[in-house]
C-alpha cells in the first residue's frame, strides 16, 4: 500500500481455462407448479366467495370443482414438464387462472335466472376438452416448425370451417355458428389459429421477396409493393376470409384477421408503409361498413352516445347498462356475487362478461385481469424476440397479437372506448370453441417459448 503506486502491475487476469462452467439454465418448472396451484386456489376461493355472498354458504361442489381444476392443471403442468421443460413458466398458470376465474364468473352469472339456462357445466366440459387438447399439443408437437409444413392444409381447413356456418341458420343476426347434436360451435374461432400459422409460414418463407422485390409506389421505397406472385396468395386468402366473415356478419373476427394480417406483414417485411396502408384500408373499410350496415351503424351511434336511449325515454341500452355496471364497481368493486350484472341482460355471459368483474371486483380487479392478459401477450412477444427462426417468431407474434387484439377490442368495446364489436374475451366468456382455441394458442406459445428459452446444445467439451 506504500511502495506500490502508479507503476504497480495490474492484477493478473483470471486464466480463461479457470472460468467456471455456466450453471445449468434454470427451467423454472417449480415456479410454474406453485403458480399453477395458486391459480387453482384463487379460482376455488372465488367459487366459494360467490356462494358465500349469494347463498350464505360455500357451494357444496366447491371441493369437487377445485379437485377437478387442480387435476387438469397438474396434468397440463406434467405435460409441460415432460415435453417442454424450458417453456415460459408464466403461461400455464395465467391460462389456468383465467379459465378458472371464467368458470367462476359464469357460475356466478348462472345464479341469475333471467340470464338464461345454466352455462357453467357446459363451459366446464369445454374447458376440460381445451386442457386435454393443450396436453395433446404439448405432447405431440415436438417442434413448432413442423406446423409450417401443413400451413396450406391448415388454411384450406380454416376456410372450409369459416364457410360452413353459411349453411346454418343465423343466431342473433350473425351466421357464425354450427349446431349439431345439441352443441354449437363457432368455427371462426379455430380458424384464427390456422390462419395465424398460415400467415406465419407464408410470410416467413417469402419475406425476402416481400421486402425487396416489386415496384415502388409513388417512388417511395417504404411503399414498395411486392410482386403479385408473392403477395397474391396471402392477399387472396386474407380477402377470402374477411369476405366470408362480412357475409356472416362476424365483424369482430374480420377485424381481428385484418389486424393480424397487418401486424404480421409489418413484422415480416419491416416496412412501416404496410402499417400505414393497413390503417388507411381499415379506416376506409370501417367507414364503408358502418354506412352500409345498419347493424354496425347503430354500434357506432351507441359508442358515441351510449346514453341516448335514456334521453329518448327508452331506458338504458346494453352499453349504458355495462357502463353503469363498471361505474358501480368503482375502485374496489361490490364484491363477487354482490353486483347486478343481470341488468345488462342478453350477452352478459359472452360479449359483456367483463362488466361483471368490473362491477364486482372494481377497477382493481379489472386492472389485475388486464395485467394477466398483458403478461400473456408480453411473454408471447418475448418468445418471438428470442426465437431464431422467422416462422417461430411470426407465429409467436401472431398468437400474441390474436390475444392482444381480442382483449383490446372487447375491453374497449364494453367500456365505450371504441365501438362495440362482438368477440369473446379469451378464457372468460362463455363459448366452447373459444376456450378450446385459446388453450391451443397457449399450447403453441408453450411450444415456441420452450424453443426460445432452450439453451443451445453444448459444444462437445475437449478432454485432455
Amino acid at each position, binding site marked *: 500500500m506504500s511502495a506500490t503506486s502508479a507503476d504497480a502491475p495490474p492484477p493478473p487476469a483470471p486464466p480463461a481455462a479457470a472460468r467456471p462452467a455456466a450453471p445449468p439454465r434454470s427451467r423454472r418448472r417449480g415456479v410454474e407448479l406453485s403458480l399453477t396451484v395458486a391459480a387453482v386456489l384463487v379460482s376455488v376461493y372465488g367459487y366459494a366467495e360467490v356462494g358465500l355472498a349469494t347463498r350464505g354458504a360455500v357451494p357444496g361442489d366447491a371441493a369437487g370443482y377445485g379437485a377437478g381444476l387442480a387435476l387438469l392443471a397438474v396434468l397440463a403442468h406434467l405435460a409441460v414438464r415432460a415435453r417442454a421443460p424450458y417453456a415460459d413458466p408464466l403461461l400455464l398458470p395465467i391460462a389456468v387462472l383465467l379459465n378458472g376465474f371464467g368458470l367462476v364468473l359464469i357460475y356466478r352469472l348462472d345464479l341469475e335466472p333471467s340470464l338464461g339456462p345454466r352455462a357453467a357445466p357446459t363451459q366446464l366440459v369445454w374447458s376440460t376438452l381445451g386442457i386435454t387438447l393443450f396436453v395433446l399439443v404439448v405432447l405431440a408437437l415436438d417442434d413448432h416448425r413442423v406446423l409450417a409444413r401443413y400451413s396450406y392444409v391448415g388454411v384450406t381447413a380454416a376456410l372450409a370451417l369459416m364457410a360452413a356456418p353459411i349453411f346454418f341458420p343465423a343466431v342473433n343476426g350473425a351466421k357464425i355458428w354450427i349446431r349439431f347434436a345439441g352443441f354449437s360451435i363457432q368455427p371462426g374461432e379455430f380458424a384464427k389459429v390456422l390462419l395465424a400459422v398460415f400467415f406465419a409460414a407464408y410470410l416467413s418463407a417469402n419475406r425476402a421477396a416481400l421486402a425487396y422485390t416489386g415496384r415502388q409506389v409513388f417512388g417511395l421505397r417504404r411503399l414498395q409493393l411486392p410482386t403479385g406472385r408473392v403477395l397474391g396468395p396471402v392477399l387472396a386468402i386474407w380477402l377470402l376470409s374477411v369476405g366470408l366473415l362480412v357475409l356472416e356478419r362476424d365483424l369482430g373476427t374480420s377485424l381481428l384477421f385484418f389486424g393480424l394480417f397487418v401486424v404480421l406483414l409489418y413484422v415480416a417485411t419491416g416496412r412501416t408503409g404496410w402499417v400505414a396502408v393497413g390503417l388507411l384500408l381499415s379506416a376506409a373499410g370501417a367507414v364503408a361498413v358502418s354506412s352500409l350496415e345498419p347493424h354496425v351503424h347503430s354500434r357506432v351511434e351507441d359508442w358515441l352516445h351510449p346514453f341516448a336511449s335514456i334521453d329518448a325515454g327508452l331506458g338504458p341500452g346494453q352499453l349504458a347498462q355495462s*357502463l353503469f355496471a363498471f361505474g358501480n364497481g368503482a375502485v374496489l368493486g361490490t364484491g363477487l356475487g354482490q353486483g347486478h350484472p343481470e341488468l345488462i341482460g342478453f350477452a352478459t355471459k359472452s360479449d359483456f362478461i367483463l362488466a361483471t368483474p368490473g362491477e364486482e371486483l372494481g377497477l382493481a380487479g379489472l386492472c389485475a385481469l388486464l395485467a394477466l392478459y398483458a403478461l400473456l401477450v408480453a411473454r408471447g412477444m418475448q418468445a418471438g424476440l428470442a426465437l431464431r427462426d422467422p416462422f417461430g417468431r411470426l407465429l409467436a407474434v401472431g398468437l400474441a397479437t390474436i390475444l392482444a387484439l381480442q382483449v*383490446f377490442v372487447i375491453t374497449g368495446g364494453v*367500456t365505450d372506448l371504441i365501438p362495440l364489436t362482438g368477440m369473446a374475451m379469451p378464457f372468460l366468456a362463455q363459448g366452447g370453441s373459444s376456450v378450446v382455441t385459446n388453450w391451443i394458442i397457449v399450447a403453441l406459445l408453450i411450444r415456441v417459448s420452450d424453443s426460445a428459452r432452450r439453451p443451445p446444445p453444448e459444444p462437445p467439451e475437449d478432454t485432455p
Partner: protein
Amino acid sequence: MIRCIRRCAVLGLVLLLALAVNAVRVMVVDAGKSAHDPANRRIAIARYQHPRGGILAGGRTVTGSQDTGSQLAYARTYRDGPLYAPVTGFASQTYGTSLLEGTEDGLLSGTSSRLASVPLWNEITRNRQRPGDVHTTIDPAAQKAAYEGLAGRRGAVAALDPATGRILALVSSPSYDPGLLSGTGPAVTAQWQRLNDDPAQPMLDRAIRQTYPPGSAFKVVTAAAALESGAVTDLLAPTDSPDPYRLPGTTWSLTNEGRGCADASVYDAFRVSCNTVFAKLGADVGQSAMARQAEAFGFNDTRLRIPPGVAKSNFDTAMSPDQVALSSIGQFDTTATPLQMAMVAAAVGNGGELMTPYLVDRVTNHGGAVVARTGPVRMHRAVSEDTAEQLQQLMEAVVSDGTGTNAAIPGAVVGGKTGTAQHGVGNKGTPYAWFISYAKPPGASRAAVAVAVVVEDAEAARADISGGGSAAPIARDVMRSVLAAPPHPYGPRGGAG
C-alpha cells in the same frame, strides 16, 4: 424483425394504457354520474336491499318492512297506516317518498353520512350503513283521539306542546294507507291513480299542507294586535262599535250571528264572537300592526320545516281598510294551516312565547345511539306576557261561558276560540268549523297542550255560530288525552336507548 416485434409490443402497451385510462374514466371519474342516473336501476335495488329504518311514535314503530322476494327486495309496511299517514307520508318503490319518509330518507335508507362512524372511510368503501330510526314527537293517544274525533269527516287536527314546540298530533282526514303504494306493479299504480283521482284528496296532508280561511279563530290575533298596539287597554270597557258595521270606504255592512254586539266590550265580543267589533278593531289597529302581529305568530313564513315543509299561512301586507277589517275576522285573503292556528293557541297558552314546532324528537342509528336530537327552539315572542295573560282571559271565557263550552275539561283550565269560516263563491261552500284551544293541567300556569281543529264539512255548522259544535269536542278529546298522560320531561327521553 426484432425491431418490428419490439414496436408491436410497445403498441400493445399503448393499447393497454388506453384501456386502463379509459377504465379509470368510466369507473372512477364518471362513476358518480352513473350512480345518480335515474335510469340506473342499481340505485333502487341497493336502496331496497335492506329493511328500511323505522318511524316511531311514543316509542313504538309505526312502520315495517316486508321482503317481497322481488328484485326490489324490501317494501314498506305501515301499522295504522291511515292514522299516521300525515306524519310518515309514503315510501313507495314506484312513486318515491313524501313527508318524513322523504325528509329523513337518507337516514331511513342508510345512505346518510351521519350514520357512518368513519365518514371518509365510508366514502371509499361505499359500504351502506344499516339504516337508523326516526323517533317522532307524536303522542299516539292524542293522535288517535284526533283521528277518531274526525271520524272520517274532511278536516285536520294539529296539536302542540306549547312549552317546547313538540308536535303531539298531526291528523288529516280522510286519510289513506301509505302501504298501498309501497311496492311496484299494477296494483300500486292502480292505487296511486285511485288516490289521486279521489275528490276527497286523501293524500293531502291537511294539517300542514292545506290552508283554510281561519274565520273567527283569527280574532285571537286581532285581539293580540289591539292589546299590543294599545288600541284596547281595558277588556271590559265598551268598544265604540256599531252593529251592523259598515266596512270603511264601502257600502257593505257587516252583521253578526248573535245579539248584543253593539259597543260590546272586547271580553264579551270575543266570548260570543262578534264580527263587527273585531272587524272595526282590526281596521282601527291598521294594516301594518295587524300584519306585524300575524307574522309574530308565524304567518307569512315560507321557511317553516318540521322537517316536512309547512304551507305558508297568509296575511296580506297591502290592503285597503275594508280588506283589513275583513282580514281581521279571518276572511278575505287570510288563510292558515291547522298547524299555524295551533301555534297561535300555543303562544297564548305559553305566556306569549312561540316555540318552533318540530316533529322529530331524535334520530338514532341501528344500535340505538342518538345521531341527532331536536330540542326546543324559541321562534318569536308573539306577544308580551301581559297581553298573553289578557288573551288567556278571553279564551278561557269562551270555554267557560261562550261559544266553546264543548271543550271544557273538568279540573283543567281550558282556553279556546271557535271559528266558522265562510268560503266559496258568495259563501255557498259548506263553512269550515274551527276550534283552537289550549289546556293547562290543574295548578299549572302554562298550557301543556294546544290544539287546532278544522272540520271542512261540518253539517250543522251553517246554523251554528261557531265551530263549537263539531270542532270543539275533538279538541277537548285530544287535550284530555295529553293531560291524562304523565307530563313529558323536556330533556333527553329514555337515555340513549
